[in-house]
């Protein structure tokens, strides 16, 4: 039963992912095309920010996805530690660098937006600082999961770290906000409905959907690669 569990689950996942990946990839390309057209051509420039507002259509969804990605890591960590689900470890290994890249994109676009708006690439603004710390948490997860010769140990250590990290994220966010409140208040998530104009909100949400699809496609692809890598390792050890 145990060996069936270990081998069959990734195999079943492969069949599933190979069936959905082509359709998902096409959907991602379409959504990205529509999203970029809406964001870069269709939407009006902001009356204060001018054309630079378009950076936000990449910046904001990247921030959302990097946070979602860390929550995903924690959920995968819990399922690895509680149910010893072998696929969870492989998927966490696949998802962590993708989440880290979205955090990096968020930081870079933030810097690019900051140059015209604040006159400098980096400001110790609360939300940028929180995102930087999230990026460090990702780096720690990636480094820890790859720091052991026995990759299963790395998986479990990283799972524990992800769970502790997800508990600490709100605390870090709160303390950084206390430390510095300079940014404009969060507006899309505000209670009582979004106060953003629909002409900006629609491209933002389409871009968020497109990047979410991209995230899913990348994680599925990378998980398949991790399954292959694990099989190769097992085959090498059997020689």
């Amino acid at each position, binding site marked *: 039963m145990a060996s069936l569990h270990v081998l069959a689950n990734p195999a079943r996942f492969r069949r599933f992912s190979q069936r959905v990946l082509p359709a998902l990839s096409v959907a991602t390309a379409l959504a990205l095309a529509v999203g970029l057209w809406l964001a870069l051509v269709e939407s009006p420039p902001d009356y204060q920010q001018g054309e630079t507002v378009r950076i936000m259509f990449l910046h904001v969804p990247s921030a959302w996805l990097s946070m979602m990605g860390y929550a995903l890591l924690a959920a995968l960590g819990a399922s690895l530690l509680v149910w010893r689900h072998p696929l969870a470890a492989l998927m966490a290994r696949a998802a962590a660098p993708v989440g880290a890249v979205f955090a990096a994109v968020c930081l870079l676009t933030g810097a690019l937006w900051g140059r015209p708006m604040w006159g400098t690439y980096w400001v110790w603004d609360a939300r940028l600082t929180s995102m930087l710390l999230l990026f460090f948490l990702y780096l720690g997860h990636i480094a820890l999961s790859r720091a052991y010769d026995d990759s299963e140990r790395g998986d479990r250590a990283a799972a524990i770290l992800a769970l502790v990290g997800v*508990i600490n994220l709100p605390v870090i966010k709160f303390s950084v906000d206390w430390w510095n409140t300079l940014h404009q208040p969060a507006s899309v998530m505000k209670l009582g409905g979004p106060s953003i104009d629909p002409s900006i909100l629609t491209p933002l949400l389409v871009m968020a959907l497109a990047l979410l699809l991209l995230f899913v496609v990348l994680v599925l692809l990378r998980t398949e690669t991790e399954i292959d890598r694990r099989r190769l390792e097992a085959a090498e050890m059997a020689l």
Partner: protein
Amino acid sequence: MTGFGALLARDLRLVWRRPGDVMVVLAFFVVATVLFPLGIGPETNLLARIAAGILWCAALFAALLSLERLFAADYEDGALDLLLLAPWPLELAALAKCLAHWIVTGLPLALLAPLMGLLFGLSGDGLLAVGLTLLVGTPALSLIGGLAAALTLGARRGGALLALLALPLCVPTLIFGAGAVEVVAIGEGFLTHLAILGALALLSLATLPWAIAAALRQAGE
């Protein structure tokens, strides 16, 4: 609680047999803080303004430096197996180890930091704030660092990895610890900061022993 007490007593006795290990950490703290005026310049106003941040960061680095050996010695000589096999909760063992670390590092750092504050031109209330915030804040650092130490047992690049894991999690403690001294400088009370530091330490106390125990169990596998 006899097992908890026995482990705490054992670790304190081991430190007592080799006091040099603690002295090196305290010496690192002193030397590191003294380097800042040499690098930044001796202007008193500037030094007094950044003293809190420097003292807190140096204390954080000193604590992390000493944490690398917290579980590594037990891991290498096989004593960790005996802790895993002790007939009482491993969470308590994790807590005893971190408490021992705090007694020999956090506590002396909290006593030493106000003395170093004198070199930075901090005055009465500022010195008090440095000492008290370190006293309340360092238990959280010992627990966070303890988790990082347990997670990196047997890993490649253990020391640098430990710092990478622990530092982001230490940020809230650092912010409120150093922040307390800053509000004193503008003539306000730092009780709120102290209360939040206490809350952070309690949050660590409520969650991290379980995480450390889980990390130690998987290190034993």
